[in-house]
Protein backbone atom coordinates (compact mmCIF):
# COMPACT_ATOMS: atom_id res chain seq x y z
CA UNK A 1 0.00 0.00 0.00
CA UNK A 2 1.61 3.20 -1.18
CA UNK A 3 -1.37 5.53 -1.25
CA UNK A 4 -4.64 5.86 0.55
CA UNK A 5 -7.70 5.99 -1.62
CA UNK A 6 -11.08 7.29 -0.50
CA UNK A 7 -12.19 3.75 0.12
CA UNK A 8 -9.04 2.96 2.15
CA UNK A 9 -9.75 6.01 4.25
CA UNK A 10 -13.31 4.88 4.85
CA UNK A 11 -12.07 1.43 5.84
CA UNK A 12 -9.59 3.02 8.23
CA UNK A 13 -12.19 5.32 9.80
CA UNK A 14 -14.42 2.31 10.27
CA UNK A 15 -11.65 0.44 12.06
CA UNK A 16 -10.80 3.51 14.08
CA UNK A 17 -14.36 4.10 15.18
CA UNK A 18 -14.60 0.46 16.21
CA UNK A 19 -11.43 0.57 18.25
CA UNK A 20 -11.28 3.95 19.91
CA UNK A 21 -14.34 3.49 22.15
CA UNK A 22 -12.45 0.62 23.81
CA UNK A 23 -10.11 3.20 25.32
CA UNK A 24 -13.01 5.05 26.89
CA UNK A 25 -12.13 4.25 30.50
CA UNK A 26 -8.45 4.96 30.13
CA UNK A 27 -9.16 8.35 28.55
CA UNK A 28 -11.83 9.12 31.09
CA UNK A 29 -9.44 8.42 33.96
CA UNK A 30 -6.66 10.47 32.41
CA UNK A 31 -8.96 13.41 31.73
CA UNK A 32 -10.39 13.14 35.23
CA UNK A 33 -6.90 13.74 36.64
CA UNK A 34 -6.31 16.86 34.66
CA UNK A 35 -9.77 17.96 33.50
CA UNK A 36 -13.36 16.83 33.90
CA UNK A 37 -13.23 13.23 32.88
CA UNK A 38 -15.40 13.47 29.81
CA UNK A 39 -12.80 12.75 27.13
CA UNK A 40 -13.51 9.02 27.11
CA UNK A 41 -17.19 9.70 26.51
CA UNK A 42 -16.42 12.38 23.94
CA UNK A 43 -14.31 9.90 21.98
CA UNK A 44 -16.90 7.15 22.25
CA UNK A 45 -19.75 9.38 21.08
CA UNK A 46 -17.71 11.22 18.47
CA UNK A 47 -16.32 8.05 16.92
CA UNK A 48 -19.80 6.61 16.70
CA UNK A 49 -20.83 9.77 14.86
CA UNK A 50 -17.93 9.37 12.45
CA UNK A 51 -18.90 5.76 11.80
CA UNK A 52 -22.55 6.61 11.21
CA UNK A 53 -21.55 9.38 8.83
CA UNK A 54 -19.36 7.20 6.63
CA UNK A 55 -22.20 5.82 4.52
CA UNK A 56 -22.88 9.33 3.24
CA UNK A 57 -19.23 9.87 2.32
CA UNK A 58 -18.74 7.05 -0.15
CA UNK A 59 -18.68 9.35 -3.17
CA UNK A 60 -16.38 11.93 -1.65
CA UNK A 61 -12.66 12.39 -2.10
CA UNK A 62 -10.26 11.77 0.80
CA UNK A 63 -10.04 15.46 1.78
CA UNK A 64 -13.79 15.75 2.06
CA UNK A 65 -14.05 12.47 3.97
CA UNK A 66 -11.60 13.79 6.56
CA UNK A 67 -13.23 17.21 6.86
CA UNK A 68 -16.78 15.92 7.11
CA UNK A 69 -15.79 13.21 9.57
CA UNK A 70 -14.30 15.93 11.77
CA UNK A 71 -17.53 17.87 11.60
CA UNK A 72 -19.56 14.76 12.35
CA UNK A 73 -17.45 14.08 15.40
CA UNK A 74 -17.93 17.55 16.82
CA UNK A 75 -21.61 17.69 15.99
CA UNK A 76 -22.37 14.80 18.33
CA UNK A 77 -19.50 15.20 20.78
CA UNK A 78 -18.81 18.90 20.82
CA UNK A 79 -16.21 19.80 23.39
CA UNK A 80 -12.75 21.30 23.47
CA UNK A 81 -11.36 18.13 22.00
CA UNK A 82 -14.20 17.94 19.51
CA UNK A 83 -13.63 21.44 18.20
CA UNK A 84 -9.85 20.96 18.08
CA UNK A 85 -10.11 17.56 16.43
CA UNK A 86 -12.67 18.80 13.90
CA UNK A 87 -10.45 21.75 13.12
CA UNK A 88 -7.48 19.42 12.66
CA UNK A 89 -9.33 17.11 10.29
CA UNK A 90 -10.84 20.01 8.37
CA UNK A 91 -7.45 21.66 7.97
CA UNK A 92 -5.77 18.44 6.91
CA UNK A 93 -8.59 17.63 4.53
CA UNK A 94 -8.52 21.06 3.03
CA UNK A 95 -4.84 20.59 2.29
CA UNK A 96 -5.57 17.68 -0.04
CA UNK A 97 -8.76 19.19 -1.47
CA UNK A 98 -9.68 17.55 -4.75
CA UNK A 99 -6.99 14.85 -4.69
CA UNK A 100 -8.12 11.28 -5.33
CA UNK A 101 -5.55 9.69 -3.04
CA UNK A 102 -3.15 10.49 -0.25
CA UNK A 103 0.54 9.81 -0.83
CA UNK A 104 3.25 9.46 1.81
CA UNK A 105 4.57 12.79 0.60
CA UNK A 106 1.23 14.43 1.48
CA UNK A 107 1.33 13.33 5.08
CA UNK A 108 3.82 15.81 6.60
CA UNK A 109 1.99 18.80 5.18
CA UNK A 110 -1.40 17.46 6.15
CA UNK A 111 -0.31 17.09 9.76
CA UNK A 112 1.31 20.48 9.65
CA UNK A 113 -1.88 22.01 8.26
CA UNK A 114 -3.78 20.33 11.07
CA UNK A 115 -1.40 21.82 13.61
CA UNK A 116 -1.73 25.31 12.15
CA UNK A 117 -5.50 25.06 12.18
CA UNK A 118 -5.52 23.90 15.79
CA UNK A 119 -3.19 26.69 16.81
CA UNK A 120 -5.34 29.29 15.06
CA UNK A 121 -8.54 27.95 16.62
CA UNK A 122 -7.32 27.55 20.22
CA UNK A 123 -4.37 29.92 20.43
CA UNK A 124 -2.00 27.29 21.82
CA UNK A 125 1.74 27.34 21.23
CA UNK A 126 4.11 24.35 21.38
CA UNK A 127 4.98 23.21 24.90
CA UNK A 128 1.61 24.10 26.39
CA UNK A 129 0.46 20.50 26.77
CA UNK A 130 -2.01 20.23 23.93
CA UNK A 131 -2.30 18.00 20.89
CA UNK A 132 0.02 20.44 19.13
CA UNK A 133 2.79 18.80 21.10
CA UNK A 134 2.28 15.52 19.33
CA UNK A 135 1.18 16.93 15.97
CA UNK A 136 4.26 19.08 15.39
CA UNK A 137 6.88 16.37 16.14
CA UNK A 138 4.92 13.98 13.92
CA UNK A 139 4.89 16.47 11.06
CA UNK A 140 8.65 16.81 11.37
CA UNK A 141 9.24 13.07 11.50
CA UNK A 142 6.93 12.46 8.54
CA UNK A 143 8.87 15.04 6.54
CA UNK A 144 12.04 13.03 7.18
CA UNK A 145 10.30 9.80 6.23
CA UNK A 146 8.91 11.31 3.05
CA UNK A 147 12.31 12.66 2.14
CA UNK A 148 13.72 9.17 2.69
CA UNK A 149 11.04 7.73 0.40
CA UNK A 150 9.54 5.60 3.15
CA UNK A 151 6.59 3.36 2.39
CA UNK A 152 3.19 4.21 3.84
CA UNK A 153 3.69 1.48 6.37
CA UNK A 154 7.14 2.71 7.40
CA UNK A 155 5.88 6.29 7.62
CA UNK A 156 2.91 5.32 9.76
CA UNK A 157 5.10 3.22 12.05
CA UNK A 158 7.57 6.09 12.39
CA UNK A 159 4.84 8.60 13.09
CA UNK A 160 3.49 6.38 15.81
CA UNK A 161 6.91 5.99 17.40
CA UNK A 162 7.44 9.76 17.43
CA UNK A 163 3.94 10.33 18.72
CA UNK A 164 4.57 8.08 21.68
CA UNK A 165 7.81 9.83 22.54
CA UNK A 166 6.14 13.20 22.16
CA UNK A 167 3.26 12.06 24.35
CA UNK A 168 5.75 11.02 27.02
CA UNK A 169 7.27 14.49 26.80
CA UNK A 170 3.89 16.16 27.46
CA UNK A 171 4.11 14.78 30.98
CA UNK A 172 6.72 17.37 31.86
CA UNK A 173 4.74 20.27 30.44
CA UNK A 174 2.53 22.64 32.37
CA UNK A 175 -0.95 22.98 30.88
CA UNK A 176 -1.97 26.46 29.78
CA UNK A 177 -5.27 25.76 28.00
CA UNK A 178 -8.61 24.22 28.79
CA UNK A 179 -9.35 22.74 32.16
CA UNK A 180 -5.78 21.58 32.63
CA UNK A 181 -4.74 25.24 32.55
CA UNK A 182 -6.42 25.79 35.93
CA UNK A 183 -4.22 23.10 37.45
CA UNK A 184 -1.06 25.02 36.56
CA UNK A 185 2.03 23.27 37.98
CA UNK A 186 -0.16 20.47 39.31
CA UNK A 187 -0.69 19.38 35.72
CA UNK A 188 2.97 18.35 35.51
CA UNK A 189 3.54 14.60 35.68
CA UNK A 190 0.41 13.57 33.81
CA UNK A 191 0.37 13.03 30.07
CA UNK A 192 -1.97 15.22 28.02
CA UNK A 193 -5.19 13.25 27.55
CA UNK A 194 -5.97 14.79 24.16
CA UNK A 195 -2.52 13.77 22.95
CA UNK A 196 -3.08 10.28 24.30
CA UNK A 197 -6.19 10.07 22.15
CA UNK A 198 -4.24 11.21 19.09
CA UNK A 199 -1.55 8.64 19.80
CA UNK A 200 -4.10 5.85 20.02
CA UNK A 201 -5.47 6.94 16.66
CA UNK A 202 -2.05 6.99 15.06
CA UNK A 203 -1.34 3.58 16.47
CA UNK A 204 -4.54 2.32 14.93
CA UNK A 205 -3.55 3.92 11.63
CA UNK A 206 -0.17 2.19 11.67
CA UNK A 207 -1.83 -1.12 12.31
CA UNK A 208 -4.36 -0.50 9.56
CA UNK A 209 -1.66 0.25 7.02
CA UNK A 210 0.39 -2.75 8.12
CA UNK A 211 -2.62 -5.06 7.75
CA UNK A 212 -3.44 -3.66 4.32
CA UNK A 213 0.17 -4.09 3.28
CA UNK A 214 0.45 -7.75 4.31
Amino acid sequence: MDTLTASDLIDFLEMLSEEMPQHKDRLRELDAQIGDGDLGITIAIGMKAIEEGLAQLEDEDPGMILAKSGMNFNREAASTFGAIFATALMSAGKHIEGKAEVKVSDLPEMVEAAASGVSARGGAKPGEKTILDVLLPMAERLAQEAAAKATMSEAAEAAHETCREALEATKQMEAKHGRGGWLKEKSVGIEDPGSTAICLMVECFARFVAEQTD
Partner: protein
Amino acid sequence: MKKLINDPYEFVDETIEGVLLAHPDHLRRCEGSKRALMRADGPIEGKVGIVTGGGSGHIPVFLGYVGPGLCDAVSIGNVFSSPSTDDMLAATKAVDTGAGVLHLYGNYSGDVMNFGMAAEMAEMDGIEVATALARDDVSSAPVEEMDSRRAVAGLFFAYKIAGARAEEGAGLEEVMEAAESAIFNTRSMGVALSPCTIPAAGEPTFTLGENEMEIGMGIHGEPGVRRGEIRPADEVVDEILGHVIADLPFESGDEVAVLVNSLGATPPEELYVMFRRIHAVLDEAGLTIDSAFIGEYATSLEMAGASISLLKLDDDLKRLLHAEAYSPMLPPLGS
Protein backbone atom coordinates in the same frame (compact mmCIF):
# COMPACT_ATOMS: atom_id res chain seq x y z
CA MET B 1 -24.14 5.14 40.32
CA LYS B 2 -27.64 5.62 41.71
CA LYS B 3 -29.71 7.58 39.29
CA LEU B 4 -33.24 7.71 38.03
CA ILE B 5 -32.28 7.45 34.39
CA ASN B 6 -32.66 5.10 31.45
CA ASP B 7 -29.89 4.63 28.87
CA PRO B 8 -27.05 6.94 30.01
CA TYR B 9 -26.42 7.93 26.41
CA GLU B 10 -30.05 9.04 26.04
CA PHE B 11 -29.93 11.04 29.28
CA VAL B 12 -29.57 14.47 27.74
CA ASP B 13 -32.13 13.97 24.98
CA GLU B 14 -34.63 12.47 27.42
CA THR B 15 -34.11 15.41 29.76
CA ILE B 16 -34.83 17.82 26.93
CA GLU B 17 -37.91 15.87 25.92
CA GLY B 18 -39.15 16.05 29.48
CA VAL B 19 -38.53 19.78 29.63
CA LEU B 20 -40.42 20.39 26.41
CA LEU B 21 -43.33 18.23 27.54
CA ALA B 22 -43.45 19.94 30.93
CA HIS B 23 -43.25 23.49 29.65
CA PRO B 24 -44.82 23.48 26.18
CA ASP B 25 -46.09 27.06 26.47
CA HIS B 26 -42.69 28.31 27.44
CA LEU B 27 -40.07 26.52 25.34
CA ARG B 28 -39.84 25.03 21.88
CA ARG B 29 -37.11 23.68 19.64
CA CYS B 30 -35.25 25.98 17.27
CA GLU B 31 -35.89 25.03 13.68
CA GLY B 32 -33.80 22.12 12.50
CA SER B 33 -32.08 21.39 15.80
CA LYS B 34 -32.74 18.80 18.48
CA ARG B 35 -30.42 20.45 20.95
CA ALA B 36 -31.34 24.12 20.60
CA LEU B 37 -34.38 25.52 22.41
CA MET B 38 -35.94 28.94 22.41
CA ARG B 39 -38.76 30.95 23.99
CA ALA B 40 -42.01 29.59 22.64
CA ASP B 41 -43.12 33.16 21.97
CA GLY B 42 -39.82 34.10 20.31
CA PRO B 43 -38.15 35.55 18.40
CA ILE B 44 -39.17 38.91 19.83
CA GLU B 45 -39.23 41.38 16.98
CA GLY B 46 -36.65 44.13 17.33
CA LYS B 47 -35.16 42.81 20.58
CA VAL B 48 -31.50 41.86 20.89
CA GLY B 49 -31.41 38.09 21.13
CA ILE B 50 -29.45 36.45 23.92
CA VAL B 51 -28.16 32.96 23.24
CA THR B 52 -26.56 30.88 25.93
CA GLY B 53 -25.50 27.28 26.13
CA GLY B 54 -23.14 24.77 27.59
CA GLY B 55 -22.91 21.24 28.87
CA SER B 56 -25.83 19.44 30.50
CA GLY B 57 -25.97 18.59 34.18
CA HIS B 58 -26.32 22.08 35.60
CA ILE B 59 -30.08 22.82 35.60
CA PRO B 60 -31.34 25.54 35.91
CA VAL B 61 -28.16 26.43 33.98
CA PHE B 62 -28.53 26.71 31.03
CA LEU B 63 -31.98 26.01 29.65
CA GLY B 64 -33.78 27.16 32.79
CA TYR B 65 -32.67 30.72 32.06
CA VAL B 66 -34.60 31.07 28.83
CA GLY B 67 -37.64 33.29 29.15
CA PRO B 68 -38.87 36.87 29.30
CA GLY B 69 -36.23 39.04 30.97
CA LEU B 70 -33.63 36.32 30.50
CA CYS B 71 -32.15 34.55 27.47
CA ASP B 72 -33.94 33.88 24.19
CA ALA B 73 -32.40 30.58 23.25
CA VAL B 74 -30.03 27.92 24.46
CA SER B 75 -27.92 25.20 22.92
CA ILE B 76 -27.41 22.08 24.93
CA GLY B 77 -24.36 19.85 25.06
CA ASN B 78 -23.76 16.41 26.48
CA VAL B 79 -23.14 16.23 30.21
CA PHE B 80 -20.35 18.68 31.06
CA SER B 81 -19.49 19.04 27.36
CA SER B 82 -19.98 21.87 24.92
CA PRO B 83 -22.98 22.04 22.62
CA SER B 84 -22.18 21.68 18.95
CA THR B 85 -21.43 24.57 16.63
CA ASP B 86 -24.50 23.62 14.61
CA ASP B 87 -26.85 23.93 17.56
CA MET B 88 -25.32 27.24 18.60
CA LEU B 89 -25.74 28.50 15.07
CA ALA B 90 -29.34 27.27 14.92
CA ALA B 91 -30.10 29.09 18.20
CA THR B 92 -28.41 32.25 16.96
CA LYS B 93 -30.31 32.28 13.69
CA ALA B 94 -33.60 31.48 15.39
CA VAL B 95 -33.60 34.51 17.67
CA ASP B 96 -32.06 37.16 15.43
CA THR B 97 -34.60 39.66 14.17
CA GLY B 98 -31.98 42.07 12.91
CA ALA B 99 -31.08 43.59 16.27
CA GLY B 100 -28.13 41.28 16.71
CA VAL B 101 -27.37 38.45 19.11
CA LEU B 102 -25.36 38.28 22.32
CA HIS B 103 -23.62 35.01 23.04
CA LEU B 104 -23.57 34.91 26.83
CA TYR B 105 -22.09 31.86 28.51
CA GLY B 106 -19.33 30.57 30.77
CA ASN B 107 -15.64 30.67 29.94
CA TYR B 108 -14.91 27.03 29.14
CA SER B 109 -12.71 26.28 26.19
CA GLY B 110 -15.04 23.81 24.49
CA ASP B 111 -17.85 26.31 24.59
CA VAL B 112 -15.59 29.18 23.56
CA MET B 113 -14.31 27.30 20.52
CA ASN B 114 -17.69 26.07 19.39
CA PHE B 115 -19.47 29.38 20.04
CA GLY B 116 -16.57 31.05 18.26
CA MET B 117 -17.11 28.93 15.17
CA ALA B 118 -20.87 29.53 15.36
CA ALA B 119 -20.36 33.28 15.65
CA GLU B 120 -18.09 33.27 12.60
CA MET B 121 -20.70 31.38 10.63
CA ALA B 122 -23.57 33.59 11.83
CA GLU B 123 -21.63 36.67 10.82
CA MET B 124 -21.13 35.17 7.39
CA ASP B 125 -24.92 35.02 7.32
CA GLY B 126 -25.13 38.71 8.13
CA ILE B 127 -26.04 38.37 11.81
CA GLU B 128 -24.27 40.73 14.18
CA VAL B 129 -22.89 38.74 17.11
CA ALA B 130 -21.31 39.97 20.32
CA THR B 131 -19.88 37.76 23.04
CA ALA B 132 -19.73 38.06 26.83
CA LEU B 133 -18.01 35.37 28.88
CA ALA B 134 -18.82 34.88 32.54
CA ARG B 135 -15.61 34.47 34.53
CA ASP B 136 -16.63 34.74 38.16
CA ASP B 137 -14.69 31.92 39.85
CA VAL B 138 -11.85 33.65 41.69
CA SER B 139 -10.24 30.32 42.56
CA SER B 140 -9.54 29.44 38.94
CA ALA B 141 -6.78 31.99 38.26
CA PRO B 142 -5.27 35.12 39.81
CA VAL B 143 -7.10 38.35 39.07
CA GLU B 144 -4.45 39.43 36.55
CA GLU B 145 -5.45 36.38 34.52
CA MET B 146 -9.15 37.15 34.73
CA ASP B 147 -9.56 36.18 31.08
CA SER B 148 -8.73 32.58 31.84
CA ARG B 149 -11.09 32.31 34.79
CA ARG B 150 -13.98 29.92 34.56
CA ALA B 151 -17.64 30.62 35.33
CA VAL B 152 -19.70 29.24 38.18
CA ALA B 153 -23.09 30.28 39.60
CA GLY B 154 -22.38 34.02 39.20
CA LEU B 155 -23.44 33.59 35.57
CA PHE B 156 -26.96 33.96 36.98
CA PHE B 157 -26.37 37.67 37.60
CA ALA B 158 -25.19 38.20 34.03
CA TYR B 159 -28.31 36.47 32.69
CA LYS B 160 -30.60 38.50 34.85
CA ILE B 161 -28.95 41.80 34.04
CA ALA B 162 -28.32 41.37 30.32
CA GLY B 163 -31.79 39.86 29.96
CA ALA B 164 -33.42 42.86 31.60
CA ARG B 165 -31.38 45.28 29.50
CA ALA B 166 -32.42 43.57 26.29
CA GLU B 167 -36.03 43.59 27.46
CA GLU B 168 -35.72 47.36 27.94
CA GLY B 169 -35.01 47.63 24.24
CA ALA B 170 -31.30 48.39 24.44
CA GLY B 171 -29.06 47.77 21.43
CA LEU B 172 -26.53 44.93 21.10
CA GLU B 173 -23.63 47.05 22.31
CA GLU B 174 -25.56 48.16 25.38
CA VAL B 175 -26.77 44.68 26.22
CA MET B 176 -23.20 43.42 25.97
CA GLU B 177 -22.03 46.24 28.21
CA ALA B 178 -24.67 45.39 30.79
CA ALA B 179 -23.55 41.76 30.70
CA GLU B 180 -19.91 42.76 31.08
CA SER B 181 -20.72 45.11 33.90
CA ALA B 182 -22.41 42.23 35.72
CA ILE B 183 -19.50 39.93 34.94
CA PHE B 184 -16.81 42.34 36.10
CA ASN B 185 -18.63 43.06 39.34
CA THR B 186 -19.34 39.43 40.20
CA ARG B 187 -16.95 37.22 42.18
CA SER B 188 -17.61 33.69 43.34
CA MET B 189 -16.01 30.77 45.06
CA GLY B 190 -17.30 27.34 45.97
CA VAL B 191 -16.63 24.33 48.11
CA ALA B 192 -17.19 20.71 47.16
CA LEU B 193 -17.95 17.96 49.66
CA SER B 194 -18.66 15.04 47.37
CA PRO B 195 -18.36 14.30 43.66
CA CYS B 196 -20.93 13.57 41.00
CA THR B 197 -21.09 10.94 38.30
CA ILE B 198 -21.54 11.65 34.62
CA PRO B 199 -24.19 9.07 33.63
CA ALA B 200 -22.27 7.80 30.59
CA ALA B 201 -19.07 7.55 32.64
CA GLY B 202 -20.64 5.53 35.44
CA GLU B 203 -18.00 6.55 37.93
CA PRO B 204 -17.35 9.76 39.86
CA THR B 205 -15.05 12.28 38.17
CA PHE B 206 -12.99 12.73 41.31
CA THR B 207 -12.94 11.42 44.85
CA LEU B 208 -12.85 13.19 48.17
CA GLY B 209 -11.93 11.41 51.39
CA GLU B 210 -14.56 10.60 54.02
CA ASN B 211 -13.70 13.80 55.89
CA GLU B 212 -12.44 15.97 53.08
CA MET B 213 -13.69 19.05 51.33
CA GLU B 214 -12.15 21.11 48.55
CA ILE B 215 -12.40 24.88 48.68
CA GLY B 216 -12.60 26.55 45.28
CA MET B 217 -13.42 23.45 43.27
CA GLY B 218 -15.17 24.15 39.96
CA ILE B 219 -18.58 22.83 39.00
CA HIS B 220 -17.10 20.00 36.94
CA GLY B 221 -14.63 19.02 39.62
CA GLU B 222 -11.89 21.38 38.46
CA PRO B 223 -9.17 21.85 41.06
CA GLY B 224 -9.68 24.38 43.82
CA VAL B 225 -7.38 26.31 46.08
CA ARG B 226 -7.21 23.94 49.00
CA ARG B 227 -8.22 20.41 49.91
CA GLY B 228 -8.48 19.57 53.55
CA GLU B 229 -10.47 18.26 56.44
CA ILE B 230 -14.10 19.32 56.45
CA ARG B 231 -14.64 22.34 58.74
CA PRO B 232 -17.66 23.97 60.37
CA ALA B 233 -19.81 26.01 57.99
CA ASP B 234 -18.78 29.31 59.58
CA GLU B 235 -15.09 28.65 58.95
CA VAL B 236 -15.76 27.59 55.37
CA VAL B 237 -17.75 30.78 54.77
CA ASP B 238 -14.97 32.86 56.29
CA GLU B 239 -12.35 31.27 54.07
CA ILE B 240 -14.40 31.63 50.90
CA LEU B 241 -15.44 35.20 51.61
CA GLY B 242 -11.85 36.11 52.43
CA HIS B 243 -10.89 35.26 48.85
CA VAL B 244 -14.02 36.69 47.27
CA ILE B 245 -14.05 40.04 49.05
CA ALA B 246 -10.33 40.66 48.50
CA ASP B 247 -10.59 39.90 44.80
CA LEU B 248 -12.70 42.72 43.36
CA PRO B 249 -12.09 44.09 46.04
CA PHE B 250 -15.45 44.74 47.69
CA GLU B 251 -15.07 47.72 49.97
CA SER B 252 -16.82 49.20 52.94
CA GLY B 253 -19.87 51.10 51.75
CA ASP B 254 -20.49 48.87 48.74
CA GLU B 255 -23.93 47.46 48.20
CA VAL B 256 -24.09 43.85 47.09
CA ALA B 257 -26.41 41.09 45.98
CA VAL B 258 -25.57 37.72 47.50
CA LEU B 259 -26.07 34.38 45.81
CA VAL B 260 -25.68 31.19 47.84
CA ASN B 261 -25.86 28.29 45.47
CA SER B 262 -26.19 24.59 46.11
CA LEU B 263 -24.33 22.27 43.77
CA GLY B 264 -27.15 19.80 44.08
CA ALA B 265 -27.07 17.54 47.11
CA THR B 266 -26.46 20.24 49.68
CA PRO B 267 -29.89 21.06 51.13
CA PRO B 268 -31.33 24.60 51.47
CA GLU B 269 -31.04 24.39 55.24
CA GLU B 270 -27.25 24.37 54.94
CA LEU B 271 -27.32 27.32 52.55
CA TYR B 272 -29.24 29.29 55.17
CA VAL B 273 -26.79 28.28 57.89
CA MET B 274 -24.09 29.66 55.61
CA PHE B 275 -26.08 32.80 54.86
CA ARG B 276 -26.31 33.57 58.56
CA ARG B 277 -22.54 33.74 58.68
CA ILE B 278 -22.24 35.54 55.34
CA HIS B 279 -24.51 38.24 56.71
CA ALA B 280 -22.27 38.68 59.74
CA VAL B 281 -19.05 38.79 57.70
CA LEU B 282 -20.41 41.30 55.17
CA ASP B 283 -21.77 43.41 58.00
CA GLU B 284 -18.35 43.41 59.59
CA ALA B 285 -16.78 44.42 56.27
CA GLY B 286 -19.19 47.32 55.90
CA LEU B 287 -21.03 45.83 52.92
CA THR B 288 -24.77 46.31 52.64
CA ILE B 289 -26.88 43.42 51.41
CA ASP B 290 -29.43 44.55 48.85
CA SER B 291 -30.83 41.12 48.16
CA ALA B 292 -30.22 37.44 48.76
CA PHE B 293 -30.63 34.61 46.27
CA ILE B 294 -30.51 31.25 48.00
CA GLY B 295 -31.07 27.92 46.32
CA GLU B 296 -30.06 25.94 43.26
CA TYR B 297 -28.93 28.38 40.58
CA ALA B 298 -26.20 26.29 38.94
CA THR B 299 -25.87 22.67 39.88
CA SER B 300 -23.48 19.83 39.16
CA LEU B 301 -25.78 16.85 39.06
CA GLU B 302 -25.76 15.39 42.57
CA MET B 303 -22.54 16.98 43.79
CA ALA B 304 -22.58 18.13 47.42
CA GLY B 305 -21.21 21.59 48.04
CA ALA B 306 -22.08 25.21 47.63
CA SER B 307 -20.78 28.47 46.27
CA ILE B 308 -21.05 32.08 47.31
CA SER B 309 -21.25 34.88 44.75
CA LEU B 310 -21.23 38.60 45.40
CA LEU B 311 -22.32 41.21 42.89
CA LYS B 312 -21.37 44.79 43.55
CA LEU B 313 -24.33 46.94 42.61
CA ASP B 314 -24.75 50.38 41.17
CA ASP B 315 -28.09 51.94 40.33
CA ASP B 316 -28.23 50.44 36.86
CA LEU B 317 -27.34 46.95 37.98
CA LYS B 318 -29.85 47.19 40.79
CA ARG B 319 -32.67 48.19 38.47
CA LEU B 320 -31.81 45.39 36.06
CA LEU B 321 -31.33 42.78 38.77
CA HIS B 322 -34.81 43.40 40.10
CA ALA B 323 -36.57 43.67 36.76
CA GLU B 324 -39.24 41.10 35.99
CA ALA B 325 -38.21 37.78 34.56
CA TYR B 326 -39.88 34.44 34.19
CA SER B 327 -39.06 30.84 33.58
CA PRO B 328 -40.90 27.82 34.97
CA MET B 329 -37.51 26.32 35.85
CA LEU B 330 -36.24 29.33 37.71
CA PRO B 331 -35.14 29.24 41.34
CA PRO B 332 -36.60 31.86 43.69
CA LEU B 333 -35.99 35.33 42.31
CA GLY B 334 -34.54 36.96 45.37
CA SER B 335 -35.55 38.37 48.68
